[in-house]
């Protein structure tokens, strides 16, 4: 009896550190965000709030959500549009382009050393400290001293098409926002896809080649169908990451210091939802409203994951695989 109990408890014992970590770093903040989202917490009532934490003295209200959804915030619709553009476009790079990149590197490039060098080169932005990455981009796009405009001119882009400011001129500022984030994100998908492609039994690919399939047909009809799991994982992971990411935008558009980064980001058309929440919390000290804004992201993230499960056929993916990948 005691032995049986011990066997049952053992897995939980091993899982305990991870569960504790998840509870501390994910469930507790989520719970707090939900709670704060329904309060009017700001710098003005901060001390009183701490004293009355989780008591009936805290004013519980749905005003924050009314402000988000009923037009009380003049920026929110613009922020939503920019976020849609940002998440949609960067996701295409992170989940779509990285797939093409992985097939090119892991399948089409037969030389293993060259393939490794290419993989490592795509990892450079990911392993570079964020602030250095942002700084390098700031130098690169500088209209006067940066390399970007001269490089574009050298490949034949007319001068009239080049912006005088990559930071401020729309849509160039938004293209920049997409590219700088996509360049980091693509490496994540590339690693996952490449590992999956490398684990496809060579017999399957060789059989297709013997049957006369072209490389394109192998990629389309053999490799991609076997990557549904990694594709679901990368798409879902990247969607959640992008919804919550703002750090590179903050570092590039707020690099001058001196305050007002949120105003500059708005004028440049790069104010994404999570940066908006950050600015509301840490520039304007509207903690309750910022939590409500974040909560909307959590709900959107959950809805999107459910949609992805449907799109990728989660049930079928859970069935025993006919091929070991």
């Amino acid at each position, binding site marked *: 009896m005691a032995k049986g109990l011990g066997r049952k408890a053992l897995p939980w014992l091993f899982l305990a550190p991870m569960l504790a970590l998840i509870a501390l770093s994910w469930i507790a903040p989520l719970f707090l965000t939900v709670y704060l989202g329904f309060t009017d917490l*700001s*710098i*003005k009532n901060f*001390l009183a709030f701490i004293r009355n934490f989780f008591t009936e003295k805290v004013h519980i209200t749905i005003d924050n959500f009314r402000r988000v959804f009923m037009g*009380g*915030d*003049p*920026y929110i619709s613009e922020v939503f549009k920019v976020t849609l553009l940002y998440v949609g476009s960067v996701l295409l790079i992170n989940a779509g382009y990285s797939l093409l990149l992985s097939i090119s590197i892991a399948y089409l490039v037969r030389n293993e050393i060259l393939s490794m060098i290419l993989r490592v080169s795509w990892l450079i932005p990911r392993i570079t400290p964020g602030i250095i990455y942002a700084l390098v981009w*700031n*130098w690169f796009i*500088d*209209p*006067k*001293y940066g390399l970007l405009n001269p490089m574009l001119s050298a490949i034949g882009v007319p001068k009239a098409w080049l912006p*005088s*400011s990559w*930071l*401020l*001129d729309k849509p160039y500022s938004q293209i920049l926002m997409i590219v700088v984030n996509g360049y980091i994100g693509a490496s994540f998908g590339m690693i996952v896809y490449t590992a999956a492609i490398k684990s496809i039994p060579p017999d399957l690919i060789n059989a297709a080649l013997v049957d006369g399939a072209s490389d394109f047909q192998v990629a389309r009809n053999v490799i991609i169908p076997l990557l549904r799991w990694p594709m679901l994982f990368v798409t879902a992971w990247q969607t959640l990451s992008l919804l919550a990411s703002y750090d590179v935008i903050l570092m590039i*558009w*707020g*690099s*001058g*210091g*001196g*305050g*007002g*980064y*949120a*105003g*500059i980001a*708005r*004028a*440049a058309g790069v104010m994404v939802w999570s940066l908006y929440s950050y*600015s509301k919390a840490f*520039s*304007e*000290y509207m903690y309750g409203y910022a939590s409500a804004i974040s909560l909307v992201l959590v709900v959107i993230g959950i809805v999107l994951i459910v949609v992805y499960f449907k799109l990728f056929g989660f049930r079928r993916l859970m069935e025993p695989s006919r091929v070991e990948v």
Partner: protein
Amino acid sequence: MRGLRTSSYIAKYKDLLQDVYPVLWNSVKYKGKIWALPQDTEARPLYFRKDVLRKLGWSEDEINALPEKIRSGEVTMLDLIKVAKEAVSKGLVQWGFYHRPNFGAQPFVIFYYQYGGILQDPDTGKLVLVKSAMLKSLELLYKMAQVDKVLPPEMIGTSWRQIHSDFVNGRVLFWLGGTWHWAEWQRVAYHETLGKLPEDYEWKNMGFALVPAPEPGLKPLTLSSPYLYYVTSQSKYPELAFLLILLATSTPLDAKHAVDSAHLPVRMTTVDHPYYTESRFHTEVAYMLKYTTFEPLHPKFSAYKDAWIAAITKVEKGELTPDKALDEMVSVLKSEIGDELIIKE
């Protein structure tokens, strides 16, 4: 933690605080009460290139008299815009003016104050928007960037390195900067041949003055953002803490801090301290404190700044006219700040 109202201690130790620049008390007041002691301060001058003015035909006397003429209101921003246009048209500089690439208060708050704007109601502590002053200040920036083309339309977002490099190398005639930049140019190699600037080079080729009155009849000003010493309301020995910060701002320490960190003193007696008088720059710039102004102390001022800088960016780029930008700013501020904002015509 909340700051402790220090008014009672200031009254008790007033004999030890008589030499604090009176204007600096405005920076620590909220709803008429004093909450802190200023620790240090600075000023935001208008720097100018003497070498470019020489090439425009100005005599040494005319160049040396410029700061005083700005101080007296004889020379205004409108006059300097004309000078800048001339320098640009003759190919002596690429741009007439540079200002900060972010909010940083200079010169936006200064222009707004010069046109009669106020940012905080002294009695209620609420933020204030005076529409006529804001419109005038936006119109001035529009004129500089879009009409006379002496200011880059994409000034906001320009890299700091480019700004310093362009001014230090003489590609810009006027730079609306801060007093600490004088020291920065000596410590960072911005100059393309000299690297770090010797101070002699600065005295020979650069000058500084108050931010001129935008137009005749208005006043020159500058702006400071002092660091402040607070005593928290949780302090067990608040009077002892107050005496400690009083000592920390005493004349010898004030002089040492001001000179070593390229800031300005908080006490009038500091400007006569030997350590301070040894620094020519500090001595010559100290008068600006009599013309200084401050940003408001208000938790919602960040929201105000965000709406303001968005308006400035759009106006300078020519995306919105000043009146349209003001309308947008007013509607945003009403929504963001609500009851804490007073709008005046």
